[in-house]
């Protein structure tokens, strides 16, 4: 059975491995270049962004991480979609389409065992692929995460490419593809539906992590630096007055235009604003929620995918048509 699974799906396995290898090389080159650049140009770790040397360094690091990061951002959508469409969808749909299920299901291996071998074998391969991807992106990020530069691990570009999320996305997309293949029995329709659902899930969840927990809330009554730590997930900030009523910054500007003037960049303006009873509220998720959010999203993906997969498996095992 292992041989059959390999023989029928080796194309997908080899191509995915090759693409992962190419990505690995790109990440390696980027990481090595960055490490070299950081070693030669890094100012003191406690450098302040205001100094030209420091800001030039941070700008260059940002440039470097964004160049590759933008590419990676698309990978968080494309990779699961492709896995679902090319690993999952044909798994059963192609058998039904070409009638080969009639051949395979009348050999001496039960349908249950055949299906188990395919789903477990390919599911394990897909999960492994996702973990490998995370295992490559993680050290690449680490190459940038050298003070004074700070890598935000919640960043949309790579939040779904580190930790367990690539594995969760890939596995759920694979199960989704398998299930749509079993229900539609047409490879092309199964692929199209899988791609569409993956895109919907991706854009639906893109900014969802902010709502995976109640954010921390900091109320400022005096002038201070940004209360949200650098590596936290910023949610929102707004103003309240003494009685707790919310203000947008525009409303506040209007209210303060008389007493405090209009130049908002000065510390004097801020002081004036605080002295009039305004408080700044900042909401964010601290960095230690990273794993909680990873598991939350993994659950959001895997629970419906596995439920759908279960329905598809039951329908396939029941001798029907």
């Amino acid at each position, binding site marked *: 059975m292992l041989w*059959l699974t390999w023989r029928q799906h080796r194309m997908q396995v080899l191509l995915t491995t090759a693409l992962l290898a190419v990505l690995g090389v790109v990440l390696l080159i980027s990481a090595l270049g960055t490490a070299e650049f950081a070693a030669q140009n890094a100012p003191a770790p406690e450098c302040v962004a205001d100094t030209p040397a420091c800001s030039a360094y941070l700008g260059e690091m940002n440039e470097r991480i964004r160049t590759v990061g933008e590419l990676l951002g698309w990978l968080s959508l494309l990779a699961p979609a492709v896995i679902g469409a090319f690993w999952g969808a044909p798994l059963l749909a192609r058998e039904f389409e070409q009638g*080969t299920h009639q*051949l395979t299901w009348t050999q*001496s291996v*039960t349908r249950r065992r055949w299906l188990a071998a395919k789903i477990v074998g390919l599911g394990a391969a897909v999960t492994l692929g996702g973990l490998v991807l995370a295992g490559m992106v993680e050290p690449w990020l680490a190459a940038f995460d050298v003070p004074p530069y700070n890598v935000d691990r919640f960043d949309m570009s790579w939040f779904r490419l580190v930790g367990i999320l690539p594995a969760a996305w890939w596995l759920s997309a694979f199960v989704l593809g398998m299930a749509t293949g079993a229900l539609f029995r047409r490879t092309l329709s199964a692929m199209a539906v899988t791609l569409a659902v993956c895109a919907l899930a991706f854009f639906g969840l893109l900014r969802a992590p902010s709502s995976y927990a109640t954010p921390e809330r900091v109320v400022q009554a005096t002038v201070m630096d940004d209360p949200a730590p650098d590596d936290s997930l910023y949610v929102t900030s707004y103003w309240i007055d003494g009685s707790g009523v919310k203000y947008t910054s525009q409303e506040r500007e209007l209210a303060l235009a008389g007493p405090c003037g209009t130049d908002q960049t000065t510390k004097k303006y801020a002081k004036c604003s605080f002295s009039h009873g305004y408080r700044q509220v900042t909401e964010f998720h601290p960095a230690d929620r990273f794993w909680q959010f990873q598991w939350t999203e993994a659950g959001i993906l895997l629970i419906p995918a596995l439920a759908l997969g279960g329905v598809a498996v039951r329908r396939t095992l029941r*001798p029907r*048509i």
Partner: protein
Amino acid sequence: MTVDRTVGMFGGGAGEFTAPAQSPTALEAVRLAKRYRGTWALRDCTLSVPAGRVIALVGPNGAGKSTFLHLVAGLIAPTRGSVRIFGEPVGQRAEALARVAFLAQDKPLYDGFTVAEMLRFGRHLNPGWDDALARQRLAELDIPLNRKVGKLSGGQQAQVALTIAVAKRPDLLVMDEPLANLDPVARHDIMRSLMAAVAETQLTVVLSSHVVSDLTNACDWLVVLNRGQVQISGEVDELLATHRMLSGPTELADGMAARMPVISDSRSERQADLLVRTGPGTPLRDPRWKVSGVSLEELVLAYLRRPDATALPRPTLTTT
């Protein structure tokens, strides 16, 4: 495949089954029925066929042949009733699956596999796989092992599919329209290979066709399925021996028709042609009637035109 099992199956006053006791039952369907979304593809199909036969399953398109064969192969589950193969119920168990080989209508194979890989597929999925037999058959047929299945001709693909089915070493080989979409040479070759395999391995074979002439020489048992029901089930020789075409004067036809079951009845002003089922040992001694034998094709056609007429083993299993 012991005599005991046969006796056990039909013992206990289940009915006077007339099949010879030394031949076990290969295939037994009891009140088998299958419904697809409200339409009955197969209704109340009861049938018993002894082992070692080559069984022709004949019927018009849509008669339920494929449904019946899919039920026998365990690909689908019946809505009602049961199928047994050599006394064992059909189903998704490895032992049950190993006993039946199925050749589906389009003879599906994995197009991207080479012939050698198709054999490897058979070897991996069947504990009883006979690799030597498979290789020998393909060598005799001059089918190159390293060729992709998709690049073979239709006839060669059918031969590969048949080879995989035979090398599985099943007790029962089920084939759904094995000759459809093949040219006359390929049809002939396939039937010849099949007969060779039957001679070598003592297979019981069920094959369906809507063309009776394809099967006349090869098959020794005939099952006619019409509108989801079994109309004829019997040994070909016996069926031919018990059916006669009687030609005589029209004015005597009514009298003759009253004496024995008439399957087809065509009368002109002067002459009547009656296809009748004669009981054993009732010779007709009336010089005004000309008696002639019928071909299997004529017989099947006559029955298909009269869906209410049946020719089933006398008597069949009593239904409980």
